[in-house]
């Protein structure tokens, strides 16, 4: 055995140390970091959007052309993880919605022009017409819409797709269709009345002919046009429904069809010859192929793309974000800066959740609101790029959003004011417990920021790091012994209809109403609002109610979150989808191929 004596090693070791010291001189962030108005950091998150309803004319194809777009070539999409689900009735995530537009079509969809979304008819000729006070909704299908084998898409296919959402195994998707169509409080009650296609026809959906779909709801529903844009509202053909196989390779109705899917390795899309641009007001068919690859680490992908190495120039990501290690570098170098695609992450907000059943005194919750060090917390998470400070529960991306700031406080927090409120509290807690998902060191640092802020106000904060599974498992139990945690949430579509009713009614379980917020007055108002059939009236009532809820400080608003992704030099048309919050794949093109 060769033994290297430490003495032999001392000279090279010290030389290395000296070399390290000499190379370690670094410029400070003061030169450009302090100038927050410029660079990628200046992302406007939570842009005020009005996802207006388009007319029948807007719903006609083709989609408004992307300026400078060229046809042809292969776009590489590198994402860390494969899609857990491709079955349209199981997809339930913004990025999944956005990317599945490449091969799937729905009744309605968001047409994005200049970053502004407009809900238009997709397979349907318009966003739907309601009658009977919102209890009946009628859709007419367009002419010329076809599956990838050329067969026309009919009303029966849409109906079958929606019927599937009742079936066992489809609990993962949104439960609105089962609940609305049977007039049930939750999915488990709904599936007792109708258990999916195996129970035969669902009477609540009528298809008088191949082109007409009529929904009959026991209770008035105002948000059907938005629900019709969800992936669950995609048509499925009975003879092509391969059960679990459909989750790996669904049958295409959009501009691309899936020609290969090796799970966790790759997904290949090729042009669908039977898709007609003049029927589609949303999607484009610029590149010839899309090659998805899964499994490469985000840092490696980002380095390849930002430095233009290998397939980097032709590569884009729809899931990965600019890794924190590269962010400052990407901001400094103008060539890399233009490859960062940043924008508001849909209607997502990040809030500090307070378990109201444990922190019962509103004065204590107000104290937490005042002492919460928003600026310091955002600093350890990455600075302004992660989002703008929030003062409201809902995101400005929600239709009808109104800015309000019930308890104004400086971003750094106001310890003096927090102490005042604590002094006024009847029951002043000596310690509070903050639970968080460990695994990334910035979460540990965030916990330290909170510990220091709470300590300044005289409250000892106990931190409980847990792994992801334990966090999801334990924190959302009704009797879980944790007082605070940070969580992001979003509405299911950009109206306020799913925010308060699905999270702040006291009869909801701890999974939905995780703060255990209970206010009898709010409950009554929510029940009244549930009976409103008019979309505008309902949205207005919910927006007004939001301030009543927030007066009780059930959560502390933190951020309207932003997302920063990246694209190769050769990729055109990349922007963050204003509703789905990730790079919209259906507008991408190759600048040269």
């Amino acid at each position, binding site marked *: 055995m060769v033994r290297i004596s430490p003495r032999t090693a001392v000279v090279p070791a010290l030389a290395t140390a000296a070399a390290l*010291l000499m190379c370690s001189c670094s410029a400070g962030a003061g030169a450009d970091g302090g100038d927050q108005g410029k660079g990628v950091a200046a992302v406007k998150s939570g842009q005020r959007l009005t996802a207006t309803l388009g007319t029948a004319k807007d719903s006609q194809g083709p989609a408004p052309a992307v300026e400078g777009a060229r046809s042809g070539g292969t776009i590489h999409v590198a994402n860390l993880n494969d899609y857990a689900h491709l079955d349209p009735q199981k997809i339930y995530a913004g990025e999944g919605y956005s990317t599945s537009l490449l091969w799937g079509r729905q009744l309605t969809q968001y047409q994005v022009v200049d970053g502004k979304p407009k809900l238009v008819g997709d397979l349907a000729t318009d966003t739907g017409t309601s009658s009977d006070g919102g209890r009946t909704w009628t859709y007419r299908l367009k002419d010329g819409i076809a599956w990838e084998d050329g067969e026309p898409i009919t009303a029966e296919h849409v109906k079958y797709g929606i019927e599937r959402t009742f079936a066992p195994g489809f609990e993962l998707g949104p439960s609105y269709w089962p609940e609305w169509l049977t007039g049930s409080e939750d999915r488990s009650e709904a599936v007792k009345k109708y258990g999916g296609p195996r129970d035969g026809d669902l009477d609540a959906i009528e298809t008088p002919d191949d082109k007409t779909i009529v929904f009959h709801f026991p209770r008035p529903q105002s948000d059907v046009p938005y629900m019709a844009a969800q992936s669950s509202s995609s048509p499925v053909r009975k003879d092509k429904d391969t059960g679990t196989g459909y989750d790996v390779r669904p049958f295409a109705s959009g501009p691309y069809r899936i020609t290969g899917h090796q799970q966790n390795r790759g997904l290949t899309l090729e042009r669908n010859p039977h898709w007609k641009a003049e029927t589609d007001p949303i999607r484009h068919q610029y590149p010839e192929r899309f090659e998805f690859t899964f499994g490469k680490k985000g840092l490696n992908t980002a380095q390849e793309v930002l430095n233009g190495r290998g397939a980097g120039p032709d590569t884009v990501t729809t899931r990965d974000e600019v890794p924190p290690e590269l962010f400052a570098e990407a901001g400094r170098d103008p060539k890399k800066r233009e490859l960062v695609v940043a924008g508001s992450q849909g209607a997502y907000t990040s809030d500090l959740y307070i378990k109201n059943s444990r922190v019962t005194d509103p004065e204590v919750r107000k104290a937490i609101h005042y002492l919460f060090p928003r600026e310091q917390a955002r600093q350890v998470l990455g600075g302004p*790029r992660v989002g703008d400070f929030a003062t409201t529960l809902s995101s400005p991306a929600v239709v009808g959003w109104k800015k309000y700031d019930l308890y104004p406080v400086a971003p750094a927090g106001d310890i003096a004011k927090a102490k005042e409120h604590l002094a006024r509290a009847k029951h002043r807690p000596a310690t509070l417990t903050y639970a968080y998902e460990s695994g990334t060191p910035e979460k540990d640092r965030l916990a330290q920021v909170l510990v220091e802020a709470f300590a300044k106000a005289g409250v000892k904060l106990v931190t409980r790091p847990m792994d992801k599974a334990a966090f999801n498992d334990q924190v959302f139990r009704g009797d879980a012994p944790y007082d605070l945690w940070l969580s992001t949430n979003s509405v299911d579509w950009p109206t306020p209809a799913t925010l308060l009713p699905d999270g702040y009614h006291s009869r909801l379980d701890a999974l939905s109403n995780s703060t255990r917020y209970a206010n009898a007055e709010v409950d009554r108002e929510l029940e009244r609002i549930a009976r409103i059939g008019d979309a505008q009236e309902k949205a207005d009532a919910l927006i007004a109610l939001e301030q009543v809820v927030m007066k009780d400080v059930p959560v502390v608003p933190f951020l309207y979150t932003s997302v920063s992704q990246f694209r190769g030099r050769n990729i055109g048309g990349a922007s963050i989808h204003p509703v789905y919050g990730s790079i919209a794949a259906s507008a991408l093109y190759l600048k040269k191929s």
Partner: protein
Amino acid sequence: MAEDHSDRLFGLPPRGPFATAVRAFRRDRTGMAALAVVACCVLLALAAPLLCALYGKDPTSHYGQDTPGLLSAEGLPVLPNGGISAEHWFGVEPGLGRDVLAQLLYGMRTSLLVATASVAVIAVTGVVLGVTAGYLGGLADRAFGFVCDVLLAFPTLLLLLALGPVVRTRFVGPGENEPAWMQFTVLVLVFAAFGWVPLAMVLRTTVRALREREFVEAARAAGASRRHIVFRELLPNVWAPVLVHVTLALPGVVTAEAALSFLGVGIDEPVPDWGRMISRGSEVFYDDPTYMVFPGVTILVFVLAFNLLGDAVRDALDPRTAR
């Protein structure tokens, strides 16, 4: 040097083995320099609270967050070279904005505490088990050999990775923080549980050889008790390998502890720790390379000094070992 050493020995009045070793050590310039560095480190660690009080900073305050102008909105030091200034001599930590010098000094305490405690337990366990097995022989020796084989085959790192969350959920109530002493104890116990094996194996072999030597035979013939033989005849002859092993094991524990903290299973926030500092340094390496340098160089110098010291101690005690 070895020959030189033995030549001189004959010309001098007889000395005890310890005095001979000290003399040999004193002549070793590298060893003396290493000793000076080690002594300096120990002194700095012991005096850390005093030094920090004089310096006016503590290792847990978030200076960068509380004082405007130190960190950018992204959490990077505004001043060049990691924010080195008259106020913060080694700069500030990116993100939380703690003082790097204070963190380093207190991090040294963490490292030394874990290392000395582990090494103390290792020395005691190793001596007891090694000498016992060597002296008794037979069944005890075979059992000892089996246990050593099992422990040497044990995946220590995996055990620690798996043990962390278990200890936390089993012994820490939901309404309390995991106490720092518990993290220290777990680390020390795990290092000790696996660290005693090499020492005990060396001692076993040494004692087996010694057992057959004339002076032990003579003591046995004179009717000395087993206790007397172990404590008065055998133990005084094994302190040299113990000392060598201990001085060489200490830097090993320091790096192992840093590695575990780097992986997130060592000492948690907010206790200052070098491994975690290096981990943070690697996250911000592109933007603030200076931050990586201080803990990196400190740990290098610290471990190198301990290794050189161990080397010198071995040379002094065992001149026959050719280098």
